[in-house]
């Protein structure tokens, strides 16, 4: 059986008076890559922030590795990359990583290791302000790899990357998952689903489907995840234009494809 690394139950988040997540329940298996897919503004970043524990939550619970999200014991065990590259522009890549390594008390040897992992070792002494968008997000990713955290939450890490780098980065995610790291990777690019073990399809603040890429295509009788997503949305609006919340007896979490 697969262990559950992250679990949310009835999670609701309201931002600026607007509901962003409504009664969202899902579980994320450990040691796998789970892709969090959905259009911009559907609540992916908010869900990730809630799992990190930096998001104010209206109701519901989020459990990470058996502890409440954001609790002190988790701060060393969860690596987090925000959508905005959270590094200091007027420092070099190496200085940035060195600073965060000091904060985390990670060994100095890891500094070059993580820079190498994201393929920026040739630029280690370059100022972050001089990097391209793709290099910037990889510099931010390097910081998240410090201390080898068992859970990695990556918010759109491949935006702005050329296809070669994208494949390389997903290759690295795969190696990390093979070593036992749990990865939750958000993206609004549907074809990134091919590299994931599991998918959470999100729309309007709720999970539309949770399945493996193959399972999703089989159950919707489609060839690609993008088509499956469209199929689910159409099925949903034909079935229920008012978009009422899910019935309480409905199974939640994995292996659920709703409103077919």
């Amino acid at each position, binding site marked *: 059986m697969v262990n559950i690394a992250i679990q949310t139950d009835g999670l609701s988040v309201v931002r600026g008076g607007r509901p962003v997540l409504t009664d969202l329940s899902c579980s994320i298996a450990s040691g796998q890559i789970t892709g969090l897919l959905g259009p911009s503004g559907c609540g992916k970043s908010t869900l990730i922030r809630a799992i990190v524990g930096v998001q104010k939550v209206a109701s519901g619970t989020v459990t990470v590795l058996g502890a409440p999200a954001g609790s002190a014991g988790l701060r060393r065990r969860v690596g987090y990359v925000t959508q905005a590259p959270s590094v*200091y522009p*007027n420092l070099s890549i190496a200085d940035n990583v060195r600073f965060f390594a000091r904060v985390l008390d990670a060994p100095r040897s890891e500094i070059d290791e993580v820079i190498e992992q994201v393929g920026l070792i040739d630029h280690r002494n370059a100022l972050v302000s001089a990097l391209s968008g793709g290099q910037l997000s990889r510099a931010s990713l390097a910081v998240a790899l410090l201390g080898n955290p068992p859970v990695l939450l990556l918010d759109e890490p491949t935006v702005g990357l050329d296809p070669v780098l994208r494949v390389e980065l997903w290759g690295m995610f795969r190696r990390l998952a093979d070593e036992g790291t749990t990865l939750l990777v958000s993206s609004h690019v549907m074809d990134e689903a091919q590299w994931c073990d599991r998918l959470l399809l999100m729309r309007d603040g709720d999970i539309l489907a949770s399945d493996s890429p193959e399972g999703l295509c089989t159950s919707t009788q489609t060839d690609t995840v993008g088509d499956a997503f469209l199929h689910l949305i159409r099925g949903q609006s034909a079935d229920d234009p008012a978009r009422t919340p899910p019935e309480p007896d409905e199974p939640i979490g994995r292996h659920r494809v709703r409103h077919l």
Partner: protein
Amino acid sequence: MNPRITLAIALRVLAQLRHDRRTVALLLIVPCLLMALLWWIYIDSPQVFDRVGGPLLVVFPFVIMFLITSVTTLAERTSGTLERLLAMPMNKVDFLLGYALAFAVVAIVQSALTSGLALWLLDLSVAGSVLSLMVIAVLNSILGTALGLLVSAFAQTDFQAVQFMPAFVVPQILLCGLIAPRDTLPGALSAISDLLPLSYSVDAINEVTANPAWSSDLSFNAAIVAAFTLGSLILGAATLRRRTG
């Protein structure tokens, strides 16, 4: 609280400054130039320069540290680096002390330059010791840092942060005794002046310029400035939230 993290943050802030030579030059040279300008304005009446020169030694570091801190911490709040740090095992106090420590180092260099210039080149008459002058100047720059950290919580953009300077700092400069002695202010203004931290800074520096020894009045004023600093740091810590909307 964790000294390792506090030091890491202080070193990082200083490393950022090292890459920004223009800011460092502005930080260190502009106060000296302004002091020299003031000396020139009052070249024919040195007693006026003696009266306002002392207070300016605390007003400059206060204003500059206030500005630089509010803008840098705002950048930290908006860029996501603060969120990342708060998701790490970092205490909010480490963050604030790290900033205070880094800017205290800058303040010491700045005060040494401005005081040295005023004392030895521009002949500002100071009865007290150079050391007590420096202590008060550095204490004030840390006050500026603490207030800057606090107000950065109420600004959403750099423009707003800069506008807090006329809103929070200029009234303090007008009422601190630099323009008119505090006991000559109208009753209500004098009462307001008693509530503002910079008033006690200027009282302290006036003690230093007037008395050769460290007086009890000086201890009292310095303690009030320190209390305001500590209070702002505590309030500033309260504005750093791990969980935000």
